[in-house]
């Protein structure tokens, strides 16, 4: 495991990293509250607790790089620079949403920012990221692709095939496995038999590391290395990040009774990536507080805007099926 260290990041970068993580947290906590009122439709999977993974990985990327996300995609989208107003509108199914309201939480995308989309199918993003990596390779562009995959989704065949394809084609892709301990209510002790997914990647012939996913700096260091390798033509890598989720699998779905006694409380108390980051980053209380205020206000705006936004035109039902038909 890489160890915690603020490393070579400058102050601006540190503040930006905190802003990203803090935005994800505020966004998710607020969505949780809003869902509770019954007004927010759909299947919403919250990312709170795992922020350092999205922020650490996307911190290593440029705007032209690609990410392919999961059903739990808000954090990845925010870290890749997606507009939270458009995202919030998307969650509410409103016009002006990231996908004009037609995708919802599970399909938020922003191709202009290299966010290829959340995905409703487990490991659905892995082959897509191989594809955007292929584009970069064939067109000789310097872009790297990242596929986020959950611990449970790592058992999907399409994920294993993607590891193989990426090594055979030597694609500039980084697989990021987010081990949050569960696939729905099923623990990794059962579905992975407690084993690291990283070992599988090695067996396919790519370098792989396991890092503490609540440690921004550890994630970032691993990502910097893997992204550099990919960008330099060194092929794929895998990073396995361990970080628990604070909420249930899906809003309104589970009571988390499958979790250990006090498990979530312990996570919030001892494994909060924001707290750990604040301590390790040596940013001042004022610097942090300034970000907090801006972020909270921005999320407030996003919610108000989304609620006030119009619903899509009914004609939207039939558009965008094809470019031409």
């Amino acid at each position, binding site marked *: 495991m890489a160890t915690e260290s603020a490393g070579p990041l400058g102050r601006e970068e540190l503040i930006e990293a905190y802003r990203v993580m803090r935005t994800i947290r505020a966004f998710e906590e607020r969505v949780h509250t809003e869902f509770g009122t019954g007004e927010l439709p759909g*299947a919403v999977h919250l990312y709170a607790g795992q922020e350092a993974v999205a922020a650490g990985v996307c911190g290593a990327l440029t705007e032209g790089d690609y990410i392919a996300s999961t059903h739990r995609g808000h954090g990845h989208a925010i870290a890749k620079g997606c507009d939270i107003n458009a995202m919030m509108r998307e969650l509410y199914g409103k016009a002006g949403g990231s996908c004009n309201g037609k995708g919802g939480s599970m399909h938020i995308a922003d191709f202009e920012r290299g966010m290829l989309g959340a995905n*409703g199918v487990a490991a659905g993003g892995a082959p897509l990221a191989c594809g955007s990596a292929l584009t970069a390779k064939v067109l000789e562009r310097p872009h790297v692709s990242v596929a986020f995959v959950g611990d449970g989704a790592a058992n999907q*065949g399409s994920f294993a095939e993607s590891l193989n394809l990426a090594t055979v084609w030597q694609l500039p892709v980084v697989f990021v496995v987010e081990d949050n301990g*569960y696939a729905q*209510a099923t623990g990794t002790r*059962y579905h992975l038999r407690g084993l690291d997914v990283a070992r599988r990647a090695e067996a396919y012939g790519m370098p792989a590391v396991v890092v503490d996913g609540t440690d921004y700096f550890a994630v970032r260091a691993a990502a910097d290395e893997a992204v550099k390798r990919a960008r330099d033509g060194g092929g794929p890598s895998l990073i396995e990040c361990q970080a628990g989720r604070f909420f249930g699998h899906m809003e309104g779905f*589970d009571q988390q*009774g*499958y979790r250990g006694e006090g498990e979530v409380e312990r996570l919030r108390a001892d494994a909060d990536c924001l707290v750990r980051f604040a301590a390790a980053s040596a940013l001042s209380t004022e610097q942090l507080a300034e970000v907090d205020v801006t972020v909270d206000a921005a999320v407030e705006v996003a919610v108000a805007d989304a609620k006030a936004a119009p619903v899509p035109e009914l004609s939207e039902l039939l558009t965008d099926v094809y470019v031409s038909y």
Partner: protein
Amino acid sequence: MTQSPRVLSYLDALNEALALEMAADPSVVVFGEDNVGGHGCDGTMGHAWGPTRGLHNQFPKQIFDAPITEAAFVGAAVGAAATGLRPVADLLFVDFAGVCFDQILNQAAKLRYMVGGKAKVPMVLRAMWGTGMRRGAQHSQALYSLFTHIPGLKVVAPSNPVDAKGLLASAIQDDDPVIFFEHKLLYFGSRGVVPEERYTIPIGEAKVVREGGDVTIVAVGRMVNEALGAAEKLAAEGIQAEVIDPRTLSPFDFDTVYASVEKTSRLVVVDESSPRCSIATDIAGTVAENRFASLSAAVRTVTGPHAPVPFSPVLEDAFAPNADKIVDAVRSTLPSSVISKAS
């Protein structure tokens, strides 16, 4: 039954069928993701959400969780069925058939035929389907038309708790692979008086759920209720619709539809899926082939559009057929004299 009638949800009716079949036959095994409901990291178990909730207490050896490996566990259902078990595998959303489609298309459906009848594949694949839950394009499909196209499969789609319980029992007892469609809006939205005892409803028998002489409406799954709603509205105009719930899509009880069309001479088919190569055009085309002489008007299909299912509630609500659209379709089959008389 002399006791006061017992009302069950569609979800609980399915749960009861699973329990009764497991109790009656130890070779019935049930598995899928979170079918028990998790082996939490500290060993805590039993947080299933759907129709399998709580079953592990009574049947600890017959129900278990699977990792997210649909290709492996649906394929394992085929192998298990061919060697002595009666597996009931759970796909969760039917949309996930995509990740294990080979197991359905090329293994389950064809094994018996490919080996010249020397094996059988008594398995059930349960799956949630349909629009209305704001789940977006990858969690809201119907897809039964795909399975109906495939020889070797049976396809069942009950519309109410009584049928759900009896048809699931039949599916489990059946010696062929059955894809069992559970409309997610019916889980809690459909309730009915369900007999407590173990019973079956035959696969392949349609049900005339409302009699009428003016037009035949065939509707699938959740659309049965919409068709009944349409029939009410039409009745107010003096038009008597006969509503048929096929209940099983493969085999399909065309005889019941034919008999009705011979009486009414008009056919409207209501199907929540997209139109092309759908169960709607299938029924329309087959009736036009085999009962052309009975038809006095063009057949009408009422389906979702040729589009994925949108997320936004306002758009999703416009996707599926509803009673009003069905009423319009029925009207279009009637001579204008009848309609003007009625309105």
